[in-house]
């Protein structure tokens, strides 16, 4: 029973990461109808930013070898700033890879490729600057907080609690923002119908930037948290998460906030429940789920069916 509880906690906390990832995708998808393939790279950058801001030093390889910031920030502040930095990068990606195509009303497929190019550039620049080695954000970054707490027999690491709490907070804030605030409503209006939204005086370019900014922020924060909970396994480490986030996104239903969360939790839990002997197959669980769900419900669990006008 304790064992099961432990698995649940592990599953929920990795599910929280997937959900944060998928939320970032879903925000951009709902305004533009395309997937941002640079999202994984932005997540990676968020992790590196966090590492640097808490005073971590760059290793011996890369152009920035030995670099260390002259100050050390407490983890929460570093995480926040890393989110802001990731948001800035995300805006850059939007300006370079999406806006020129959007201006021309080009096939959304093209943005898939150009954003992939942006991702390749970011990841390889990063490798050039800081090398390919992996970094760890020490748990001491949490300061006086204990590394783990005991919860009904299960050992729950503080960072896992943090992940779950932050993911829950993000979902609540994001939902409230989308439903209640002017900005959020404008974003939804653009998602529903860009032309009408423009007629109503909503600047859709601004809304797209907003979506990219928020999604970049979420990715950056997720990156920092994963860096703390697991480690930063080199400049490519975001790609695997990014791909799984994509699966989670479609599993839940493109463009649906609760869907992204539900998908993330399902995949996280399912992966945690894979017996240790078969842990090699863990990575296939998300995709097997996705595959099965798509065949039964082509628009994902919570995706809305679209009615084609004839």
């Amino acid at each position: 029973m304790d064992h099961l509880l432990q698995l649940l906690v592990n599953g929920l906390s990795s599910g929280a990461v997937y959900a944060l990832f998928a939320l970032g995708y879903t925000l951009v998808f709902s305004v533009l109808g395309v997937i941002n393939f640079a999202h994984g790279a932005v997540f990676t950058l968020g992790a590196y930013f966090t590492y640097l801001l808490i005073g971590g030093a760059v290793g011996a390889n890369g152009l920035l070898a030995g670099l260390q910031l002259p100050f050390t920030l407490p983890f929460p502040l570093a995480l926040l700033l890393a989110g802001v930095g990731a948001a800035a990068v995300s805006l850059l990606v939007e300006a370079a890879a999406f806006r020129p195509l959007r201006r021309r009303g080009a096939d959304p497929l093209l943005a898939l490729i150009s954003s992939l190019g942006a991702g390749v550039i970011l990841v390889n620049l990063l490798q050039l600057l800081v090398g390919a080695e992996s970094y760890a954000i020490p748990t001491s970054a949490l300061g006086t907080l204990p590394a783990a707490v005991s919860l009904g027999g299960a050992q729950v690491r503080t960072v896992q609690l943090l992940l779950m709490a932050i993911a829950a907070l993000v979902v609540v804030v994001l939902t409230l923002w989308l439903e209640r605030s002017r900005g959020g409503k404008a974003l939804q209006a653009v998602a529903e119908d860009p032309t009408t939204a423009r007629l109503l005086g909503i600047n859709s370019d601004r809304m797209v930037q907003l979506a990219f900014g928020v999604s970049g922020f979420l990715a950056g924060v997720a990156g920092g948290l994963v860096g703390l909970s697991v480690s930063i396994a080199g400049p490519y480490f975001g790609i695997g998460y990014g791909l799984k986030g994509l699966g989670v996104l479609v599993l839940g239903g493109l463009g649906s906030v609760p869907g992204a969360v539900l998908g993330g939790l399902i995949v996280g839990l399912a992966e945690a429940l894979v017996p240790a002997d078969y842990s090699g197959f863990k990575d296939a669980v998300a995709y097997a789920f996705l595959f099965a769900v798509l065949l039964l419900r082509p628009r994902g669990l919570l995706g809305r069916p679209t009615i084609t006008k004839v």
Partner: protein
Amino acid sequence: MPLDASLLVQMLLGALLGLSVYLPLRAGQLSLATPGFYAIGGYTAALLSTRFPALAGDGALYPLPSLLLELVLAALIAGALALAIGGPVLKLKGIYLAIATIALVEILRVLNLNLGFTGGATGLFAIPQPFEGPVGYLLLSLAVLALVCWLCARLERLRLGRAMEAIREDELAAACMGLDTARVKLLSFLFSALVAAVAGVISAHFLNTWNARQGSFDASITTLAFVVFGGSRTWLGPVVGGLALTALPELLRPVGDLRLVVYGLVILLGPILFPQGLITPELLRRLRWPFRQTSAEAPAP
């Protein structure tokens, strides 16, 4: 000059993979399953030629009959899988299909990585070489590519090719004209699988070793980039895209560490500068490219 025979082989295989992505896309289906079928082809060749002595080394069937046998068997396996999953998967539209096929590739990759007979993470080694040097592979891949190109060029002028184009333009209207859209889409998916599997067989021998990395998500997107970069409206597009983008990282070696950054830049700018891809039917018409006239000439009055 890094443009040697080995690189040329890789470029030709790249062109084949580009065509494999192109074929379903021609029927409007964004399938990224190509690396999965490519992996199946590679594993078929690697397993057959390393596990069955008759097909390798001094075996009676070595080298050409065994190579042919591998090609046929790989095509059969990939084709059977394509037909089995194609029905339900091709009901998905647009990005849903793309992601479902990425999921398929990932499932296959994880299976290959963990199943015993595929050699796990290390993969399969010492795959016999039917040819002494890269020139043999060069001729073989050139012959296969020429055949596939010829088939694609013919296809564009056939009823089936026209049906594929109509589905790409408007699937619903095509169905209302009596086109069995499910069947046409399935055929294009099947062709895609066959081409990828054949490329995999050649590649496994050429590389001498095969592992799960050969069919991964990166490859899905790279092969899609071949098509988007080269152009998706005529078969020449993915061929040019596949050749160019496979060669690019090698040709960029002189820029050293920056090469992958430049590669990314090219992929970023390609769709922005050439939204139709480098090669378009209009361009070919202007250049008087002889292999694709307008597919139907008006009868003389």
